[in-house]
């Protein structure tokens, strides 16, 4: 009996395409990931390392939950759905045979689908190198046990658990909704629970509570070193074994209990079929009554439309599963809103712009699936309940029947679109935040969310109407939508006019809402909504009514349905669509130009081919600029007029200049009163989608021919006029520096010289186009390169220059520029400001910010009075005091130890959401509105990163604008490394050394994490090649050095460095070796090891506190603390080999931290105890007697050293 049912089940499933579809999808996805290496791999971890295979197996077998519900659930549900129960009940089948036959028959297919996991991984490891998408070296040996062991120990128990769960659920509830939605519900519930448990910090709980061992696999991977990751299986022992026992056991228990309770009668007796016994006599009736008046005119259509719409909505809303799915989604969104985002552990308030960003990240896909699912339900309900046989012959016209369903779904979409509003306001109120920013809510919902949801509904609707099969339609709609999404998201094809429902959508900012992008969004949505109207017409033509069995019949009905009214609408919609489309096309592809990704690459290659030879042109430098910049934010226009003094500091005459004006709309130069003529040496073939533009587009590179030759040493004054403006609507993001409120100007000057940053850097692309490999990849100009050291990092034409800048903006805004504010006035409804960079001048770049600012001013007395001005968006002033404090303390300290600050003010301006996170120019810094300004500091122990950031930015006034870095590799150690080192120092001055540990870790983690995930290895500090090296590692090593050699020595070194290199007008400019030399000179011999380690090598400590004892000595408040520590150090060689250091004697802190003794007269060692020990490699025992109760002890307890496992250094108690 079992055999029969088992065999039937297998045969049945063999013929179902669904199983093969799931298998193939899983195979392709896994194969893809393993061939590309698109996995969370660690440093030098093989793509097919056993830990990653285990991790992937756990993850994918969890995702299989989505299909498990339908495969296992349908096994049992089929008999209910198809009504075959009626005869099953009369056959001599056994309960056991039926139950286990169905179970194992389907479970076999679950295993089949699951086998795609190891198979796909294996195939991926072969395909990757074969197709050259991945380097063969990234794969280790393919040992069979790497694949089988995770399959048997992770995948098998996981799918057994979910299969038992769903089988049991369907057996008990007998409801089809469990089949569809069970998977999704559990999937969401899993994520919520993981989210909570991730915060629990208890490793054991985390491992045991995850039924799929995914958390366990992740923890195991993170705690292994590279060698372990590449060779060791995830052994099922200890907590892992307990996990498997618990969850597999639970699965078996569920299955057995379900079997025990399973009975045919109970299973097959649906509630619907409970028979009713009629009681009582039938009353004799007076006969059939006819209605006196039936009316199909007048208000019939509208009333029936309304009634049907209500009916459809009621059907959705009465569905318990709708509320479950919706509720879960709302909970997830609510969590997202509640926990929000934060930096450095300090949360931001639930600002409306942040909530909307969370919504777009988290919720939009989820809404798509709800809409798709319920569109299917609504359209097919009548057929599934077979009510259609009655309904379709009733007199409501097609458009009423069809339209009411569509309108009901649109109402659903509206409801979903309003959810972020309701939820957002509730959460804002709960958090006591009352700045609701209604304009952003309404713009966000009305202009971006609602149109998108309407487009989703129309799309899902027409797919479901045309593709008559519910599940096929689900699949097709989902695939098409995802394709459209990925095409645009990955920029493979992002031409918005041709991808349904895609609009150039960017973010919302407090300063300017959607900015000028609002216009783009509105027009593109209008375009796509008109297209959606045409989709409605298609749906009306193909709407299924009655018993229609073939395509022939459906096509037959089309002319009948295409009645005059429909024709009128179709024509109107088509006309509107074409009109809007035409206008948009004119904007996108005529007024502007659109290039595909491939065309961009072509252009980069052409640029190099055509203009590379100009690289050898001698370039003058700018020594003086007198500019008037007029900003018109409401016209999206900026105009610059002025003079620039250029000087020839090379040894060759200059007759030609190659200028790059791609940041400008138009510009002209005049020299010696004569307009300088130019030619445009490069034109591109127009983008293939820009069919009406001239055949060749002129590239923004101009070769100017100077009217007189500029001899070496000579200089000239050039008059410049330029304008920046934006016309029309381009395809993508534009005008982001030119917002109504939040303007960023770079002064309206073109850039000078051939820029190899504009070249194509990808070696693969270069080879494809037969270009030679680049000499200096990624700015890796060697430190002895004679040109490199004489060029500023800020640009080829960069030089110490003086600036006289008058900037004007609209009357309600303030324009903030670099240097000293000399004058400020209003005239003709405009607001003028006059800035100068005089005295010794400064280095580029030049940036101007204009917005409707509020200004907070303070001052600090250095050797002269310096004003501190903070320009910020109204309402964002919560942390202004912190910035001011940071600047004041920093300026005081830096001017004392590094030398005088040259300007009479320092300003901080708030940038829009498109501005860089933070940046620095002479006397003017910027921080974007998204960072720091609104951070909510509530607890005293929180890291005041506003103070810290201000201190770091202030330091750049010395390390970028008095000493300017050259163009060689590693030179960014100077402006970045020193600046963030200084920020750490200032923070330490404020909060004390003992409190620095967590802050230092925040610098350490990005370094440790990112360096293992880059395509190229990181370099030692002196040749720093990544931001996390020169910024984070640099700051940490400098801070540790200061701790070793002492603050005085450090300051002396830095002072001497600055004095040698500040205000240079002629190369060589400062490079990393120069800073290194200055530091080395001030480092005593006994500590030279440290500076060599930190600068010249990649050195990692691996110190550990193995154990400790704390014993009270008997005397009051006195303890004997014994620490068992191990000191260890590793170098990573140039060939990536790890070398364990065996013979060293390094100074490492041993610390016992806590409160001081209660009795201040007690002698002996007081806490905190912190002392440098000279430790060799290996274990050591250190015993101290301390006064005061210890809280924490360890080796390098302050976390000064770069250590790969800093958590192993200390214990808290």
């Amino acid at each position: 009996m079992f055999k029969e049912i088992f065999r039937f089940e297998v045969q049945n499933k063999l013929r179902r395409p669904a199983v093969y579809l799931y298998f193939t999808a899983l195979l392709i996805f896994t194969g893809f990931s393993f061939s590309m290496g698109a996995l969370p791999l660690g440093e030098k971890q093989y793509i097919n390392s056993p830990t990653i295979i285990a991790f992937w197996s756990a993850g994918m077998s969890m995702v299989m939950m989505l299909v498990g519900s339908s495969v296992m659930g349908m096994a049992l549900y089929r008999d209910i759905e198809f009504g075959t129960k009626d005869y099953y009940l009369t056959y001599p089948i056994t309960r056991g045979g039926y139950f286990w036959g169905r179970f194992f028959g389907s479970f076999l297919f679950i295993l089949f689908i699951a086998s795609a996991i190891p198979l796909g991984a294996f195939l991926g490891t072969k395909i990757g190198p074969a197709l050259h998408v991945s380097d063969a070296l990234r794969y280790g040996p393919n040992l069979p046990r790497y694949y089988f062991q995770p399959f048997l120990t992770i995948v098998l128990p996981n799918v057994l658990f979910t299969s038992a769960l769903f089988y049991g659920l369907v057996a008990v509830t007998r409801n089809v909704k469990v089949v569809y939605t069970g998977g999704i519900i559990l999937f969401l519930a899993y994520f919520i629970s993981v989210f909570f448990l991730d915060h629990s910090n208890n490793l054991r709980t985390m491992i045991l509570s995850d039924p799929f061992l995914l958390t366990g696999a992740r923890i195991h991977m993170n705690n292994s070193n590279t060698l372990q990751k590449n060779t060791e299986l995830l052994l099922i022992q200890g907590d892992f074994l307990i996990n498997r026992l618990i969850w597999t056991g639970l699965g078996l228990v569920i299955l057995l209990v379900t079997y025990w309770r399973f009975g045919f009668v109970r299973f097959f007796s649906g509630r619907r079929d409970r028979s009713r016994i009629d009681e009582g006599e039938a009353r004799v009736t007076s006969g059939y009554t006819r209605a006196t008046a039936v009316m199909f005119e007048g208000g019939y259509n509208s009333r029936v439309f309304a009634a049907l719409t209500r009916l459809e909505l009621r059907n959705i809303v009465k569905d318990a599963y709708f509320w479950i799915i919706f509720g879960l989604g709302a909970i997830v969104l609510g969590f997202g809103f509640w926990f929000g985002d934060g930096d450095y552990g300090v949360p931001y308030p639930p600002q409306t712009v942040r909530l909307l960003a969370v919504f777009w990240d988290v919720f939009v896909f989820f809404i798509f699936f709800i809409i798709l699912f319920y569109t299917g339900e609504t359209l097919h309900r009548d057929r599934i309940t077979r009510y259609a046989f009655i309904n379709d012959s009733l007199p409501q016209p097609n458009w009423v029947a069809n339209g009411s369903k569509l309108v009901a779904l649109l109402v659903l979409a509206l409801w979903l679109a309003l959810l972020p509003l309701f939820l957002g306001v509730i959460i804002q109120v709960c958090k006591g935040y009352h700045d609701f920013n209604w304009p952003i809510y309404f713009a966000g919902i009305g202009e971006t969310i609602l149109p998108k949801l309407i487009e989703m509904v129309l799309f899902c609707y027409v797919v479901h109407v045309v593709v008559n099969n519910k599940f096929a339609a689900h699949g097709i709609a989902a695939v098409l939508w995802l394709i459209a999404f990925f095409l645009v998201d990955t920029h493979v094809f992002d031409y918005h006019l041709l991808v349904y429902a895609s609009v150039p959508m960017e973010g919302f900012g407090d300063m300017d809402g959607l900015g000028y992008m609002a216009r783009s969004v509105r027009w593109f949505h209008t375009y796509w909504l008109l297209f959606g109207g045409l989709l409605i017409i298609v749906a009306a033509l193909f709407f299924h009514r009655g018993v229609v069995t073939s395509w022939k019949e459906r096509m037959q009905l089309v002319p009948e349905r295409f009645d005059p009214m429909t024709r009128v609408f179709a024509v109107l919609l088509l006309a509107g669509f074409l009109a809007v489309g035409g206008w948009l096309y004119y904007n996108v592809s005529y007024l502007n130009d659109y290039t595909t990704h491939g065309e961009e690459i072509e252009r980069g290659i052409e640029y190099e081919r055509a203009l590379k030879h100009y690289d050898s042109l001698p370039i003058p430098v700018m020594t003086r600029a007198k500019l008037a910049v007029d900003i018109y934010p409401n016209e999206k226009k900026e105009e610059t007029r002025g003079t620039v003094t250029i000087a020839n500091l090379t040894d060759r005459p200059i007759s030609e200049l190659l200028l790059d004006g791609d940041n400008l709309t138009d510009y002209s130069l005049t020299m010696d009163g004569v307009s300088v003529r130019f030619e445009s040496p490069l034109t591109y073939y127009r983008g293939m989608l820009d069919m009406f533009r001239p055949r060749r587009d002129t590239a923004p590179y101009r070769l100017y021919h100077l009217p007189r030759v500029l001899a070496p040493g000579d200089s000239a004054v050039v008059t410049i006029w330029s304008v920046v403006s934006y016309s029309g609507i381009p395809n993508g993001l534009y005008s982001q520096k030119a917002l109504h409120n939040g303007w960023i100007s770079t002064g309206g000057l073109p850039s000078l010289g051939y820029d190899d940053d504009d070249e194509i850097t990808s070696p693969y692309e270069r080879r494809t186009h037969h270009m030679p490999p680049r000499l200096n990849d990624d700015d890796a100009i060697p430190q002895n390169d004679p040109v490199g050291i004489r060029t500023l990092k800020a640009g080829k034409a960069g030089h110490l220059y003086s600036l006289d800048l008058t900037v004007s903006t609209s009357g309600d805004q303030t324009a903030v520029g670099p240097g000293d504010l000399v004058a400020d006035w209003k005239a003709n409804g405009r607001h003028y400001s006059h800035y100068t960079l005089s005295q010794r001048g400064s280095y580029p770049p030049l940036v101007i910010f204009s917005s409707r600012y509020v200004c907070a001013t303070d001052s600090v007395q250095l050797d002269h009075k310096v004003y501190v001005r903070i320009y910020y968006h109204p309402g964002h002033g919560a942390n202004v005091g912190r910035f001011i404090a940071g600047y004041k303390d920093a300026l005081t300290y830096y001017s004392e130890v590094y030398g005088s600050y040259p300007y009479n003010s320092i300003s901080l301006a708030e940038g829009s959401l498109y501005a860089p996170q933070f940046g620095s120019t002479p006397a003017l810094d910027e921080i974007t509105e998204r960072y720091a300004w609104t951070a909510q500091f509530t607890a005293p122990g929180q890291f005041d990163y506003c103070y810290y950031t201000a201190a770091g930015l202030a330091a750049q006034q010395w390390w970028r604008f008095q000493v300017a870095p050259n163009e060689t590799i590693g030179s960014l150690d100077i402006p970045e490394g020193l600046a963030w080192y200084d920020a750490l120092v200032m923070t330490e001055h404020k909060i004390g050394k003992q409190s620095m540990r967590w802050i230092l870790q925040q610098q350490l983690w990005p370094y440790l994490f990112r360096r293992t995930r880059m395509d190229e290895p990181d370099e030692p500090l002196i040749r720093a090649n990544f931001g996390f090296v020169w910024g984070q590692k640099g700051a940490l090593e400098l801070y540790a050095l200061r701790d070793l050699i002492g603050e005085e020595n450090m300051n002396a070194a830095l002072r001497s460095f600055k004095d040698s290199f500040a205000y240079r007008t002629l190369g060589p400019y400062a490079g990393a070796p120069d800073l290194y030399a200055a530091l080395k000179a001030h480092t005593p011999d006994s500590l030279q090891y440290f500076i060599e380690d930190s600068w010249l090598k990649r050195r990692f400590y691996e110190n550990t506190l193995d154990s400790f004892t704390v014993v009270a000595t008997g005397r009051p408040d006195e303890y004997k603390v014994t620490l068992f520590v191990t000191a260890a150090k590793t170098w990573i060689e140039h060939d990536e080999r790890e070398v364990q250091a065996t013979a060293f004697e390094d100074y490492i802190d041993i610390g016992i931290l806590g409160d001081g003794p209660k009795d201040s007269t007690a002698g002996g060692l007081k806490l905190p105890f912190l002392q440098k020990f000279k430790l060799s490699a290996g274990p050591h025992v250190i015993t101290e007697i301390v006064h005061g109760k210890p809280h924490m002890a360890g080796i390098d307890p302050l976390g000064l050293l770069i250590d790969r496992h800093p958590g192993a250094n200390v214990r808290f108690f």
Partner: protein
Amino acid sequence: MQLSIQRLSKTYSNGVRALHDVSLTLPNGMFGLLGPNGAGKSSLMRTIATLQEADSGSIALDGLDVLREKKRVRQLLGYLPQEFGVYPKVSAERMLDHIARLKGVEDARERKQLVGALLENVNLSKDRRKHLGTYSGGMKQRFGIAQALIGNPRLIIVDEPTAGLDPAERNRFYNLLSSLGENTIVILSTHIVEDVSTLCSNFAIICMGEVLYAGEPDRAVESLAGKIYTKAIGKEELAAYQQRYKVISTQLKAGRLHIRVIRDGAPEDGFEAVAPNLEDVYFSNIATRMDVNTI
């Protein structure tokens, strides 16, 4: 009112010929459609009820082109399908009210009155507030009848309406149909030949998509007068008799096989002449297309 079907044909995409050149004229009153399963009765009814398209032919209802002007037809149609479902979580009363509104009964009070009366007529008054999902098969069928009759239908199509009804309910239903009054066409398809002979003023026999006979029941029976003979034989003799005579029906009674044959003149000994009935009309027509032996 007159419903005129001209040369209606329909072939399904799998090649099955559901209707082949069907022509019928239906006057006011009850019209019975008799035929074996798969004859095309339901296809015909669904086509008239605007649920299905035809490949060729036409249907005219007093000048209204039924195939093209579906909306107008639906406005005077009452249809009880052979198989149908219901929304399980709606009550009968509410569903009927909704359908009444769809059928053009504007006035809320009138709807309430009509729904109440009809629920009484089909004996569902007691259960009118219960959800349709809880109804038994027979109750569902009675609901179907109610929804077909509600409103003001002038063309009523009932497809196997008495399936699932006990004899008393069947009688009640037919009483209801009879009281429908003038100027209404009722098309009734059924297997129960007796119902056609009792109720219908006209009828047609359909088999394999073709009309085999159309006319009035009495006349049909009359035309077979003197042509029907019966004899009791042994089971094993059937094949022999089928060779010699046109056997139109067989019936097993108390171990003996009673056969009925149709013959212009008296057959050999042992055969008894009997008065014909509508069943004989049915079987004699069907026998020209199918093997009607019930053994």
